[in-house]
């Protein structure tokens, strides 16, 4: 039996362990700001107007392709704005958001038409549509629409439930499993029902003993196994998880679905249970509040769209200027201020006391980074080429296989923010590829236009030529006719005169 470990990676302690891992429900926020854009994919289209009254769970934005998920009102109240707001993203750019002011009632949409407990009687298609219309996206952080992922994984043999907790410090999955162990198991059963996999594996890091015990206690389904895997960072990365559990390597550039595996975060499964059995779309999630400026880390059940300020008011924060970081300490994003709202993929907020970051030095190619890289890249070489924008060479060194886990940046003795460079190189590559496509397209269209104009000109010339010729021929013909007529006339006249003269004679 494999011990579920993998090459590279880092053993990292939870920097701010909590005494109790409880799930705390916080009161309804007064206003929510719901972004139409998830971290990846397209924008949903708002289908409400400013001034509309909406109920909790009501659809406020629809989708017209499968690269995004619909958005639902997370509180009942009035739509007060549909405008661009700054997103919790490294770019600090704005994206379209719907703002709802609460009426304090939390009045729900009618949610009686559920598949209920007897989802076995629902066809997989019905359940799939339920998931699709419930706005569920990957809750682990990527925010990829779950229905699309399930669709891709059609005919898969194994369902892997990622309950590893992506990064040290984040506890939201642990809290969720301890609060709703049955929901997790039922969620797995629902998904097994529709994706057609024979078995499901729930992978939990071995430091979450309570969760493992609870799930094992409540799991009565022999198709579901619960595996404890070593607590080692990046074990939760999809590629790594599939490899360490099943020994299958997802091909470069491919997805888990390519090897017949469907990976879902445990939070996503609870959302699926809520949607399918209780007919409640995705309107809340668990967020871990932790960091060096937090006295006791907490896991809060929060309505989507609640502001950071509102959520942080439920944690004991030490006074003073603090640094805010969204998501984990390894892969998260440093944010300016707290003017953001909780979105479907906000799993954690770090509030840290400001520390001076050591300044980066030159890379000395020591190679510490390639010993920790879980996908066995050469980060030092990638850095060298990314820094000089030599994208072609960086691609040669497999830039696109980088999972941006941050292990290399973490161990770098020169404190180089390596992953930032890879993100830059990847974005640049994307931009250059798109520009290349566009210029090639423009060149082709320009050349075709030139060709077309030239062809038109030629065609016109030919047409003119033909017309001229026809005219000439006609004129020639006319002339010949005239001559013939004249000749005939002549003959007639001649005959006439002959006759006349004969007559006269």
């Amino acid at each position, binding site marked *: 039996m494999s011990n579920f470990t993998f090459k*590279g*990676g*880092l*053993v*990292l302690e939870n920097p701010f362990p909590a005494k109790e891992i409880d799930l705390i429900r916080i009161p309804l926020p007064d206003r929510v700001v719901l972004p139409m854009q998830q971290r990846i994919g397209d924008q949903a289209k708002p289908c409400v107007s400013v001034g509309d009254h909406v109920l909790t769970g009501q659809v406020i934005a629809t989708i017209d392709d499968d690269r995004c998920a619909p958005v639902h009102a997370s509180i009942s109240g009035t739509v007060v704005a549909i405008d661009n707001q700054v997103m919790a993203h490294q770019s600090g750019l704005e994206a379209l958001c719907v703002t709802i002011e609460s009426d304090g009632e939390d009045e729900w949409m009618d949610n009686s038409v559920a598949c209920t407990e007897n989802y076995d009687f629902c066809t997989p298609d019905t359940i799939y549509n339920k998931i699709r219309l419930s706005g569920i996206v990957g809750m682990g952080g990527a925010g990829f629409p779950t229905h699309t992922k399930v669709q891709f994984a059609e005919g898969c043999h194994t369902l892997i439930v990622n309950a590893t907790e992506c990064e040290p410090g984040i506890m939201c999955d642990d809290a969720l499993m301890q609060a709703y162990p049955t929901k997790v198991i039922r969620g797995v059963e629902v998904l097994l029902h529709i994706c057609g996999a024979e078995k499901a594996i729930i992978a939990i890091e071995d430091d979450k003993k309570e969760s493992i015990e609870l799930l094992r206690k409540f799991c009565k389904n022999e198709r579901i196994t619960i595996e404890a895997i070593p607590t080692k960072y990046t074990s939760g990365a999809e*590629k790594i998880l599939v*490899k360490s559990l099943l020994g299958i*390597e*997802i*091909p*470069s*550039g*491919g997805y888990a679905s390519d090897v017949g595996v469907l990976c879902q975060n445990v939070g996503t499964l609870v959302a699926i249970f809520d949607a399918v059995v209780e007919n409640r779309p995705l309107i809340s999630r668990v967020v871990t509040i932790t960091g060096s400026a937090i006295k006791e880390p907490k896991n809060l059940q929060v309505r989507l769209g609640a502001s950071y300020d509102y959520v942080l008011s439920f944690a004991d924060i030490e006074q003073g200027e603090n640094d805010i970081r969204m998501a984990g300490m390894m892969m998260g994003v440093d944010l300016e201020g707290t003017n953001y709202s909780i979105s479907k993929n906000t799993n954690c907020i770090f509030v840290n006391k400001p520390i001076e970051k*050591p*300044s980066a*030095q*030159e*890379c*000395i*190619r*020591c*190679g510490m980074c*390639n*010993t*920790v890289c*879980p*996908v*066995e*890249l*050469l980060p*030092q*070489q990638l850095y060298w080429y990314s820094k000089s924008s030599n994208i072609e060479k960086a691609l*040669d*060194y*497999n830039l696109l*296989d980088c999972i941006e886990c941050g292990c290399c940046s*973490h*161990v*770098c*003795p*020169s*404190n180089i923010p390596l992953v930032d460079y890879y993100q830059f190189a990847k974005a640049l590559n994307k931009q250059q590829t798109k520009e290349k496509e566009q210029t090639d397209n423009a060149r082709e269209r320009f050349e075709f236009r030139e060709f077309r104009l030239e062809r038109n000109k030629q065609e016109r010339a030919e047409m003119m030529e033909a017309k001229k010729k026809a005219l000439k021929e006609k004129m020639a013909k006319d002339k010949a006719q005239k001559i013939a007529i004249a000749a005939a006339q002549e003959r007639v006249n001649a005959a006439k005169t002959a006759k006349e003269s004969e007559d006269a004679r």
Partner: protein
Amino acid sequence: MQDKAMDTNQVMRQVIYALALGVAAQVYFFGFSVLVQIALAVITALAAEALVLRMRGMQIAPSLRDGSAVLTAVLLAIAIPSIAPWWIIVLGVLFAIVFGKQLFGGLGNNPFNPAMLGYAFLLISYPLQMTQWPSEFQGALAIFEFSGVDALTGATNLDYVKTQLMLGESIGALTFESISQMWINFGFLLGGIYLLLRRIVFWHIPLSLIAGLALMSSILYLIDPANFSSPVFHLINGATMLAAFFIATDPVSASTTPLGRLIYGFAIGAIIIVIRVFGGYPDAVAFAVLLMNITVPLIDYYTQPKVFGK
């Protein structure tokens, strides 16, 4: 694995500390002039680095603090004969820092090992001064004396063997004392083991270098023991251990893939023997390292580890 152990400055400092044993052995056998050489080299290196950084309009203090210039200086100082005149080391360090390092863009950008570039420059330009090693303990200020130095000097074992072989003697007939060389190499070996244990250098390069050197010399020795020295002789003479643990392992100019490091180290070991035995110079570390430095981009490119999923 583990958390971040140390930053670049600490790494450089640890390497310098690890040189201490070998340097102590040198001092014991050759005298305090070794320390004077080191002091001169360090001062020159820092001054040269500061000057070039200033000309390049860059911050001076952080670069001086990273210890890389000091390390280059120390390596070069212990590689040259302890009684070489003072201007030898000054010129060598200047060349190493200015041409070997800063002109390529400073730390991290130099394709060649700066200390070895400086050494090669000196060896080619001043062969006489670069091959005269003291035969006995020297006073601290010997390098500033301009007269009478050669009366005190002798050739190294490597040089001696080479000369005698050319004169038609066979190895068996030669007697030579290698106590000093052996102890100096032993000192550097211990320092190298310390670096391995602290995980500052990876095992690949030292091990493969020693393997390459031993294998090459063994083959030659087995072919003709009368004309070729034994592997043991090569291991404990010259700059073998210094090269294996401190010079070839300079990460900036070495190969950076695991397999590449093995190839790189092995080739350096083999080339050292080839130059020592068939070449015109007594020791060969500098040329072997520089030759392999050139091939590093190629080695790195073709020895990329198998990427996940490929």
